[in-house]
């Protein structure tokens, strides 16, 4: 019996083995031996972070050439090198990436998301979309914490997820788990290339900032005393922070939510505070740059747009060369903004920092004269950026304006900045109401002249910054509102002596919404003048685009003399030639030129690395309506900081020393504390308005 049993089992086993043996011959699938080898070198975590089904999937993908040897996010450098060696490849250094949370706090969704016991961001999101007025923002239920296979996230004391950089493997599981897009995995390159998306969590100030600076983040860092961190946050979007901290007209502040409580947060003062700290610290914070790509880009124009474009190109690993017609870089920030607002030494320090990243600058070389687009191509540049600004002053359209003693605002400021000491005489008339007009007027006051500023509308309609107007008044500039030049009267030598002008009155509003000034017939009067400075407007000087100043222009231009380019990518009609700044937009803010310079650098980067330039559909352009509120409750009123004045009394009008100072550390911390930390968080002002929610605020108070 035992024998039969043994034999039978043996027989069945033998038969099975024989069938399997034959089957394994017939059904043999040829598998690359490297797959098994590579799999042995993978950690076997099967985390899915590589995007393939498990480690064997990843191994097969590496062998099939569908994934790089470094695809495993858990492997250390050594293991990746071994895998690469099996494939006969070399490991290129990978830029470090980390998960980052884009959320600074505020009145978050109440922890009262306990509907039916749901304790999950996704569930809460599906149920109500969050108890806030805005669909962005962290729900604080910590689904990301549970999703992280490496225990790299925990809930911080403020109920917001905190990422431990030492543990994070940049697998992106948290990103996939978060229904709010609060978390992203990114490295430096990805962050530099990112454009604001409507799906991002964007505070109103950040939406409005033309350079897309992460304002809530740097304010938060200042509040926490991390000033270096704040500088680096700003430098991720703006390399000219010392400059902007002084001259930016602060469009962001017009959107600050704090204004519905008391006054807007002094966003720009805070920027200036940290910028000045670095400036006076005696050393520079190191700015990381990606590995060299060997691509060369010609940047024509060393103003804010060109400097910003070159800076970001360098950080992305390319090698830009800046060409500038002037003897020093800085463009209008150097030649258009007077010393008392932006000391040249500070500007030099800032520009040197950018050049020190490894950017070459060729000064005194004029586009169109010393080089052309064709010569650049011959020299081997892979792409070109044109940011030549708007250097031509618009005329007054008044008879006699070409007489001696009439000098455009930008020309005057440039001549002064170049040390050419333009002759002012003792009676100067500046025509215009913008910042250039005020700059010219205040400069003339400092040169000892008596200055009258003539503007055709009223003071309320002046486009210049209010602080600038007040500053000019304090320094003794006289204003003549509702007056427009009619003609310039000269003496027998062809030298202007008087300006004849009309009185004006305001009529119906025009396209800009401002009331149109109309002249009062017969109201002509004369005013004596040794120098007349029309500062009415500027436009780009496009002569350089034509051969010898005439002939066919290789680029399409508008009737305002700006270059035509794709509004999303900044690429002109010539592939590989990009533009931004005043030459593209017409005269605009420094910060707009800086922001567009980065966007152009982004496009150039894509053009050089992949050919096409992706523009996400959700790119934020205007303000996102649901993030704008008209009132904010439960916020204590606090006074806004005031910048100190550095010069007083007579001193002020006769020196070009800086007028405004920086905040003290204490003041800066207090000002940062006024920030409502909107981040992406959106005040849930009145939960009672939510249709399905009981009054959660009352409930949580009781609890």
């Amino acid at each position, binding site marked *: 019996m035992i024998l*039969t049993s043994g034999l*039978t*089992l043996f027989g069945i*086993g033998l038969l099975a083995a024989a*069938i*399997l043996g034959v089957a*394994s011959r017939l059904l043999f699938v040829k598998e690359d031996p490297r797959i098994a080898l590579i799999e042995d070198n993978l950690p076997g975590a099967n985390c899915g972070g590589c995007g393939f089904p498990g480690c064997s999937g990843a191994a097969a993908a590496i062998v099939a050439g569908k994934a790089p040897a470094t695809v495993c996010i858990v492997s250390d450098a050594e293991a990746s090198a071994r895998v690469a060696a099996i494939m006969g490849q070399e490991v290129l250094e990978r830029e470090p990436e980390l998960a980052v949370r884009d959320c600074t706090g505020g009145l978050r969704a109440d922890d009262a998301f306990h509907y*039916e016991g749901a304790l999950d961001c996704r569930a809460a999101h599906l149920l109500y979309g969050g108890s806030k007025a805005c669909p962005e923002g962290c729900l604080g239920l910590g*689904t990301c914490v549970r999703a992280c296979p490496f225990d790299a996230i925990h809930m911080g004391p403020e109920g917001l997820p905190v990422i431990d950089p030492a543990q994070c493997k940049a697998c992106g599981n948290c990103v996939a788990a978060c229904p709010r897009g609060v978390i992203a995995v990114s490295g430096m390159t990805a962050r530099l290339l990112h454009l604001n998306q409507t799906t991002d969590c964007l505070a109103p100030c950040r939406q409005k900032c033309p350079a897309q600076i992460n304002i809530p983040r740097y304010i938060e860092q200042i509040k926490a005393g991390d000033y270096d961190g704040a500088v680096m946050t700003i430098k991720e979007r703006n390399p000219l922070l010392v400059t902007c901290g002084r001259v930016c007209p602060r469009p962001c502040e017009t959107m600050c939510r704090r204004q519905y409580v008391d006054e807007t947060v002094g966003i720009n003062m805070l920027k200036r505070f940290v910028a000045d700290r670095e400036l006076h610290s005696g050393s520079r914070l190191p700015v990381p740059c990606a590995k060299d790509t060997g691509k060369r880009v010609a940047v024509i124009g060393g103003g804010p747009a060109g400097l910003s474009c070159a800076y970001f190109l360098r950080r992305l690993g390319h090698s830009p060369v800046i060409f500038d017609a002037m003897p020093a870089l800085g463009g209008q920030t150097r030649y258009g903004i007077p010393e008392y607002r932006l000391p040249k030494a500070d500007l030099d320090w800032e520009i040197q920092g950018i050049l020190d990243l490894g950017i070459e600058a060729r000064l005194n070389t004029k586009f169109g004269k010393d080089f052309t687009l064709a010569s650049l191509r011959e020299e081997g540049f892979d792409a070109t950026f044109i940011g030549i600004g708007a250097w031509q002053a618009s005329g007054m359209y008044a008879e006699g304006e070409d007489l001696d003693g009439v000098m455009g605002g930008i020309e005057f400021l440039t001549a002064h900045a170049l040390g050419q000491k333009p002759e002012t005489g003792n009676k100067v008339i500046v025509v215009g109401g913008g910042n250039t007009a005020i700059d010219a007027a205040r400069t003339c006051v400092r040169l000892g002249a008596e200055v009258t500023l003539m503007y055709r509308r009223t003071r309320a309609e002046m486009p210049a910054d209010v602080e600038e107007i007040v500053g000019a008044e304090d320094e003794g500039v006289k204003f003549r509102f509702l007056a427009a030049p009619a003609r310039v009267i000269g003496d027998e030598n062809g030298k202007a002596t008087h300006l004849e002008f009309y009185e004006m009155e305001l009529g119906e509003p025009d396209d800009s919404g401002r009331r149109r000034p109309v002249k009062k017939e017969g109201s002509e009067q004369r005013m004596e003048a040794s120098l007349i400075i029309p500062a009415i407007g500027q436009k780009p000087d496009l002569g350089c685009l034509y051969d010898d100043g005439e002939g066919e222009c290789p680029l399409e231009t508008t009737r305002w003399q700006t270059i035509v380019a794709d509004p999303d990518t900044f690429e002109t009609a010539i592939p590989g030639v990009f533009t931004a700044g005043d030459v593209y937009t017409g005269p605009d803010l420094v910060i707009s030129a800086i922001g567009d310079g980065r966007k152009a650098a982004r496009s150039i980067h894509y053009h050089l690395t992949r050919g096409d330039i992706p523009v996400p559909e959700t790119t934020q352009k205007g303000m996102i309506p649901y993030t704008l509120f008209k009132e904010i409750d439960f916020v204590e009123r606090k006074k806004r900081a005031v910048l100190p004045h550095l010069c007083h009394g007579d001193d002020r009008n006769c020196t070009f020393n800086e007028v405004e100072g920086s905040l003290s550390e204490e003041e800066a911390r207090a000002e940062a504390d006024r920030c409502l930390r909107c981040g992406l968080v959106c005040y849930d002002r009145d939960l009672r308005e939510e249709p399905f929610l009981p009054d959660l605020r009352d409930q949580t108070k009781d609890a």
Partner: protein
Amino acid sequence: MQEYFLLFIGAMFVNNIVLAQYLGNCPFIGTSKDTGVAVGMGGAVVFVAVMAAAITWLVQEYVLAPFGLGFLQTLAFILVIAALVQFVEMFLKKMVPPLYKSLGIFLPLITTNCAVMGIALICQREEFGFVKTVLFALASGLGFMIALVLLAGIREKLAVRRLPIAMRGTPIGLIMAGLMSLAFFAFKGMI
């Protein structure tokens, strides 16, 4: 006809292989955290159970029974099922690679799945003919799959609810399985 129908329904619901017979509990708890995984595992079990039941029936009928070796049944069936799973794995890898990939580690797992073995043994105990054996195996496999997918659905919901920490995971899974089992007892009245 009615006989077959009752056998089918009975195997699927009334005598559900996990919930009533308590076979295959470890893969039932182990792979019921995610509906996608549960469907994969269920499919693999249905497939292997049917094949195994058919082959073991032949082995029993033509090898073990004629030689009076009924007592070797368990040993012989283990051998057969293990070899069969190996064979199926090879076959799928060659012929239906997408299916092979999607089943992944579940195929080898079934080798040690007592539900498959149980189904084969029950067919012998009940002395079913070949057709009934295949039908029973199919129904039992489907019953396993239904129970697995249902539990996975429940556990997915539970994963996002507030539960005492001690209860999270396997403990609440077992409790749910118990409750489901009670619920399945209601099918007893059907036949």
